[in-house]
């Protein structure tokens, strides 16, 4: 059959065009609204106090107050750098501990067979739903009696025992490891621990990275735990540090914004570089 010449005009063009334009228009509008807080935080971090509170809004700091940054890191009553390092230490250790403990547990749930396995797993998942409030108070009292109040121990130690959320997530990945691999290793006489370390772990490397990332983000933003266990400013991670600084001096907004900015920045940067992994991590979770 011969193709028809362009005498019949492309019927769908105008309607399709309008649809596409309006769709993207709406999406971009939403995007702008969603990004507004980030934007505002950034520009406020570099304004002077006067500019923030000016009568009319200034959309862009002029001039850019780079010295806000300087002040931030040199202020006595706001040991920013110290707190930043604390956050890094805190998030890092927790992430490592989580990866270690949760992969052990997930391995046990996913690759081994033992009686009551499913039951215990369900219990673990239920623990997920358990609101933290049920346990924090007695835990706090417990740690205080042990004398660990004021250190990072109570914040990191639980991670060594696993967290239900991450166990669940990792188990999904562990379930994907082909059983033949495990059987072959067992035939070769490897102990379970060895299997875990040398065979399975490399397989689920991506999963571990994802879990690690999630753990880092989660801990970096963690507020309540550090708030109740730590007392000295120098010990605080950024989340608490920012809070105490702000509640003490409600007039120092530019500095606070700068602090906020640098608290958020590492996470945003981390995310932008590892987006794909984040999304992967969430996708396999939607199996409930």
């Amino acid at each position, binding site marked *: 059959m011969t193709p028809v010449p362009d005498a019949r005009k492309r019927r769908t063009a105008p309607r399709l065009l309008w649809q596409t334009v309006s769709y993207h228009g709406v999406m971009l509008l939403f995007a702008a609204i969603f990004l507004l807080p*980030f934007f505002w935080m950034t520009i406020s971090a570099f304004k002077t106090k006067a500019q923030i509170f000016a009568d009319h809004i200034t959309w862009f700091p002029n001039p850019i107050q780079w010295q806000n940054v300087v002040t931030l890191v040199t202020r006595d009553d706001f040991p920013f750098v110290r707190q930043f390092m604390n956050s890094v230490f805190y998030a890092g250790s927790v992430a490592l501990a989580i990866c270690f403990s949760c992969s*052990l547990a997930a391995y046990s749930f996913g690759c081994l067979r033992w009686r009551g396995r499913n039951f215990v797993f369900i219990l673990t998942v239920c623990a997920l739903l358990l*609101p933290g409030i049920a346990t924090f108070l007695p835990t706090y009292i417990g740690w205080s009696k042990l004398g660990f109040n004021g250190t990072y121990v109570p914040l990191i130690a639980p991670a060594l025992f696993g967290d239900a959320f991450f166990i669940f997530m990792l188990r999904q990945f562990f379930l994907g490891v082909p059983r033949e691999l495990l059987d072959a290793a067992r035939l070769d006489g490897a102990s379970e621990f060895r299997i875990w370390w040398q065979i399975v772990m490399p397989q689920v490397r991506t999963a571990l990275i994802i879990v690690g990332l999630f753990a880092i983000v989660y801990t970096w933003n963690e507020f309540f735990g550090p708030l109740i266990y730590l007392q000295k400013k120098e010990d605080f991670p950024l*989340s608490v540090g920012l809070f105490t600084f702000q509640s003490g001096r409600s007039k120092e907004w530019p500095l606070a*914004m700068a602090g906020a900015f640098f608290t958020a920045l590492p996470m945003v940067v981390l995310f932008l570089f590892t987006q794909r992994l984040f999304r992967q991590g969430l996708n396999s979770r939607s199996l*409930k």
Partner: protein
Amino acid sequence: MIGLTVFTIIPLILTFYIAQTKFPLSGAPKWIGADNYLAILNDPAVRTAVRNTLTFAVLSVPIKLVLALVLALLLNRATKMSGFYQTVFYLPFLMPAVAGSLVFMLMFSPGVGPVNVFLEFLGFSPPDWLLDPKVALWTVIILNIWPLGVETLVFLGGLQGIPKDVSDAADLDSPRPWQKFVWITVPLITPMILFNLVIGIIYSFQVFTQAIVFGGTTGRPAEATLVYMVLIYRAAFKYFNMGYAAAMASVLFGVVLLLTLLIFRTARSWVYYEGESR
């Protein structure tokens, strides 16, 4: 291996049991029985906190779910910009709670932040978000709704899990698009709805960080932002009234547990299950 995994469970269970012995005060443990619980019922601060927390939960959870669903529907079209949009909408999740709260305080400040500027531009006369007790809680609500990346992604996963064939068949059978949405799309993503709902409720009842940054331990302005968790914190760490705080915590726990169980109970009837989810 088994030993190690048991280790993970025991702390969780142990703490739960420890939570049972909550009556004594710290420092000088004294057994005062149910007095704490009675005091809770009579405390006006508790009433305010409960009201605030309930309002917060009842408002933020549904709104967040609906918005997340809308967003997921919008994101479901595959366009070249999809990746960009997903990144943008997921980003707020990463904003540390404290930082975010501070930024919101600034943004919603009348005369200082863009929010009111926009509203005035559109012709509304905007309230004083920070100081007006009637709307202060709303600021916290919006702050909590803003990071809906996780919920959206969960919904998106659900939407994309609907087989194209079924979607096509529904197109052929449904004279109006919204019919397809109501009768086919939504029922098929009920597992996701359940998930988001439960997570949302558990989280919203325990909201703490945003509230305390925003309103301090007094729930500035005029106790409008005093939520339950803040009250517990205040009781435990400001007034060192451990027993009281513990009692409050156990009440909250009980309520949340009850609610969750309730939802799961009813879930049978309205959630569609694909079969065994291994």
